[in-house]
């Protein structure tokens, strides 16, 4: 699969950058993946012998990968812009006739960003888990799964072909599935894991079909060969491939209409939610789209669909976020929405790719920080996740409060925190492309400000609504240290944009296009900030200055929505908010009923059919003989009919 690209025709070299053979430190690329894999093997096969030091090994392997990644990054920084891509060809996997597949890794500007994010945030989360899972008897196994995940995720982003990417893709799916179900005593676990599994499968089929199309059209699955051959394909095929890749991305990244599993995935331990379902795995879809830039660049239709999916998801996610009382689910909805921003940006083409990755990186930091802080809160609140039983926690856990606060400021987009820079750029790019998309992004920002403020207020401000017997306390140092580091990222992440740093950095891989401004940048920024302030103010009014009910008001989803309102004390606002609420409720309902039913219905249909087919096997040898006889008759008939 890995044909040296130095032989690429001159024409293609204009768009695609040259990829050199790996030398020096780039020869260690395989080791980055092998280290955590080794850790996973030792931890999962080692049995009880590794209980005492397993978690340390788990952390060290990831740290090792991070160090390799960091050295590679520094080496790349020292090179010229067009010499920053390296390929390590490991071996020919399959090679027979028209079937040529190799195993190789590609380190370039795009993948190294991901490597750093995965290993660095991954390492912090490993560190955090040491303490968080300290009382879990199966901590060693947990670290084994985490290491497995890191390994698979690195494989996903370092792969030099769609096929190998798919291997990593399945690997992260497996690890995620294992980790969602890690706590089996959570009763919803079975459904949650099942839903995640089914929806991811739907996405996987998309990716598989895309790969099949590519193989059919280009005879290869290696990135460089596919991208070289794409311009020669017809528009229809390119669009089809783009849409199928999008389906894969939608499943993995919890985008509309396959978003529902993410909320249920919160059944897993919080570090898992932070690592897999916020910072890394769910962003794999964005990586896939950005990596496939040369394909999307050639199909306006596919690009538009990508942008629309992103826009819809970012609004839906934000709306769902306003209705959730479970702190993790609120954050999960926000993840969905933020990834919607990234997908939207990726759908804008070369004007947006770099910003999608930029937002992905900053989001990785602040969202991981938010989740870990939430974990820290839960740790202090006896694993309660209901925000209605939180309140006024800022005094009890000051460090967590500060870190969550910084993450909060980053996600709602207050300057100069990271989220401001990245989200603002996306909104700007969206406006430049299309007013409707821009408006979606803008409204999303307002709702984000509202629901994040709601989370912030209900958790750390307003009045105490704790259960009796709960004594909130700050978490141990090993847990707060990662929080502080991640909060630092949330504060400083915007620095990547200095001198257009990230844009220039990624340009050789994804290209860049100067924006044609539809309206002055300062005006748009001001508008965005205004919307954000409105959102925060609304939240303040409703949650800080009015009491929050300790239990969620009862009521059937649609019928009682008006009567037993969540916000019954603010009737005036309710008049304005009702449509939004209805939409929210409807989405939540759709989420629970519609898609659940679809999933369950599909399972029931298959199970029912199978159950009936199974009855054919009645146990009587004569009935089997009859089946055979009938089969023989059919076979004869089939052969005779063909001749007619």
């Amino acid at each position: 699969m890995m044909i040296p690209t130095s032989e690429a025709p001159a024409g293609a070299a204009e768009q695609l950058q040259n990829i050199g053979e790996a030398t020096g430190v780039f020869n260690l690329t395989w080791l980055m993946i092998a280290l955590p894999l080794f850790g996973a093997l030792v931890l999962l096969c080692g049995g009880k012998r590794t209980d005492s030091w397993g978690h340390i090994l788990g952390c060290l392997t990831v740290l090792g990968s991070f160090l390799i990644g960091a050295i590679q990054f520094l080496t790349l920084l020292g090179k010229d812009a067009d010499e920053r891509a390296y390929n390590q060809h490991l071996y020919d996997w399959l090679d027979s006739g028209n079937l040529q597949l190799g195993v190789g890794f590609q380190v370039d500007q795009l993948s190294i960003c991901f490597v750093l994010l995965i290993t660095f945030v991954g390492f912090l989360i490993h560190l955090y888990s040491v303490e968080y899972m300290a009382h879990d008897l199966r901590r060693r196994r947990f670290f084994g799964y985490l290491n497995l995940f890191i390994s698979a995720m690195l494989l996903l982003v370092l792969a030099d072909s769609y096929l190998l990417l798919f291997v990593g893709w399945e690997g992260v799916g497996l690890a995620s599935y294992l980790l969602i179900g890690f706590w089996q005593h959570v009763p919803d676990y079975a459904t949650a894991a099942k839903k995640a599994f089914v929806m991811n499968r739907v996405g996987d089929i998309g990716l598989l079909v895309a790969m099949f199309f590519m193989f059919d059209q280009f005879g290869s699955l290696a990135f460089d060969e596919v991208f070289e051959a794409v311009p020669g394909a017809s528009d229809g095929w390119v669009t089809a491939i783009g849409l199928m890749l999008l389906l894969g991305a939608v499943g993995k990244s919890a985008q509309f209409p396959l978003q529902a599993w993410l909320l249920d995935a919160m059944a897993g331990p919080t570090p898992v939610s932070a690592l897999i379902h916020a910072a890394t795995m769910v962003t794999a879809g964005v990586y896939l789209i950005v990596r496939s830039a040369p394909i999307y660049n050639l199909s306006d239709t596919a690009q538009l669909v990508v942008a629309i999916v992103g826009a819809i998801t970012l609004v839906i996610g934000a709306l769902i976020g306003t209705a959730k009382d479970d702190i993790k689910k609120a954050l999960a909805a926000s993840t969905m929405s933020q990834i919607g921003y990234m997908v939207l940006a990726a759908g804008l083409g070369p004007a947006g790719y770099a910003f999608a990755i930029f937002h992905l990186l900053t989001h990785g930091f602040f969202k991981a920080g938010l989740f870990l802080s939430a974990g820290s809160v839960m740790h202090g609140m006896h694993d309660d996740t209901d925000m209605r039983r939180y309140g006024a926690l800022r005094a009890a856990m000051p460090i967590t409060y500060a870190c969550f606060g910084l993450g909060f400021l980053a996600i709602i987009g207050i300057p100069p925190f990271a989220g401001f820079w990245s989200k603002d750029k996306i909104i700007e790019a969206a406006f430049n492309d299309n007013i409707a998309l821009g408006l979606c992004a803008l409204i999303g920002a307002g709702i984000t400000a509202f629901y994040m403020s709601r989370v912030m207020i209900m958790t750390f401000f307003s009045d105490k609504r704790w259960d009796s017997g709960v004594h909130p306390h700050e978490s141990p140092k090993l847990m707060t240290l990662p929080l502080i580091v991640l909060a630092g990222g949330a504060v400083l992440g915007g620095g990547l944009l200095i001198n257009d740093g990230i844009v220039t950095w990624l340009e050789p891989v994804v290209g860049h296009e100067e924006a044609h401004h539809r309206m002055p940048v300062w005006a748009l920024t001001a508008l965005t900030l205004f919307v954000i302030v409105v959102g925060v103010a609304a939240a303040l009014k409703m949650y800080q200055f009015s009491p929050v009910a300790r239990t969620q008001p009862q009521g059937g989803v649609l019928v009682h929505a008006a009567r037993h309102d969540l916000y019954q004390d603010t009737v005036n606002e309710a008049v304005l908010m009702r449509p939004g609420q209805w939409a929210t409720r409807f989405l939540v309902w759709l989420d629970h009923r519609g898609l659940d039913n679809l999933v369950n219905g599909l399972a029931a249909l298959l199970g029912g059919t199978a159950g009936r087919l199974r009855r054919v096997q009645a146990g009587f040898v004569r009935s089997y003989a009859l089946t055979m006889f009938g089969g023989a008759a059919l076979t004869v008939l089939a052969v005779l009919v063909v001749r007619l």
Partner: protein
Amino acid sequence: MIRLAASETLIPAPNIEYYELSPILIVFGVGVLAVLVEAFLPRAHRLHAQLALCLTGLVAAFVVVCTLTDEAQENARAVPQKVAAEGAVAIDGMTLFLQGTILLLGVVAVLLLAERRLGGEFAASAATVPGSAAEKETTRLGWVQTEIYPLLMFSIGGMLIFPAANDLLLMFVALEVLSLPLYLLCGLARRRRLLSQEAALKYFLLGAFSSAFFLYGIALLYGYAGSVRLSDINAAVSGSEDNDALLLIGMALLAVGLLFKVGAVPFHAWTPDVYQGAPTPVTAFMAAATKVAAFGALLRVFYVGLGGAKWDWHPMFWGVAMVTMLFGSLVALVQTDVKRMLAYSSIAHAGFILVGLVATNAEGLSATMFYLLAYGFSTIAAFAIISLVRDGSGEATHLSQWAGLGRRSPVVAGMFALLLLAFAGIPLTSGFTAKFAVFSASASAGGTPLIVVGVLSSTVAAFFYIRVIVLMFFSAPVTDGPRVAVPSLTTALAVWIGVAVTVFLGVLPQPVLDLADNASFLIS
């Protein structure tokens, strides 16, 4: 066969290529010797003598197959014709590849049959009535069933001829030679003897029924072509257009017999019952080796003998392949017995292999052979692991008993999970490489609808494989559930071989793919 000219009274002595036929002859010879061992050696020594004899014979035969392959590859397509025994046996690339596979699987099967530490899988004396005093007596005396070894050798001998038969009569004889010992082996289980005997009865009656169809098909083809030699039939097919009904019906009935052996829908009904009832080592052997031999025969008949009538049998095989894949995957979803689930999975796999077969080109041939090899080793190891999971009353095959197995025995459960992933076709296992090979062969032959159905059914199939993995690793263990017994060296070796091949063919399949590629030629 032998033609008797009217004027001659002497039959000319046939020319037998003993060297080329020696793998078959060695195995049959060992079978006969094994019968003599049963007759003349005291009971106490029989087991070791049998084991030594069988393993030596199989390995020797394998070595000959290797040297033959070597020679064949040196002058590969330069000397395409190498038929032995007056043209009745075709020694070509496919024959050698499949014979090698069958012999290796045979070695693994002997290792499985030799398991003693778990109390033995076979009845001390099959002639005793279950529950009778005679049964208790033989058990008390600690008799060990050693007649299984000659039976196994004869069956392997038949399997070696089956894909090599260039003549339908020989193919029929080989079919019976491989089947009859298997019918008996199925009925020899030590525990749950009623089930085992029922499996034997069902297998026997349905097998005999299907071979009657097979034979009638041969008769009709003989009527059509005037000969049962595949090359003559091929010549007749491409030569004339008349008397088609004989050809078509004969072809269909022939297909019935062979599809029965591979367990394709609608001739699959025996598979789940027999796989469940038979002693697990026998099931392992049957699932792996019978498929190899039967697909070899299918390939030869339909590629060599009926290749000219391709457009007549193609649609039928398409249908069978699709229905088989879907049916196997679907019904496996609702199974509650591990052995039965694997039986349905084997039906689904027969469908996948058929996808490679209907490609009808060299690629399809090599992909099919690769699939057979990969699947054979995975499945034999999977059944071997099933034989290790035991509770007080023997094997614990009900799925609910497997809950939480991964907690108690992570290594064994991990290996089983790996094999299941291979069945599901997850990358980096042999299953993926094999599926990829057959699908890409089929794609090059315009089989896109087949691939769509194939991918759909593997998605469904993945569901129940993963379900078992989840059950093993995430469910709370049942109280006093089964334990993984510590097997003797032979079984452990068999499991490790199967797992190692599964991983090797997933990670570094190239050498074997090349081998299959080079072997993908048939004498026409």
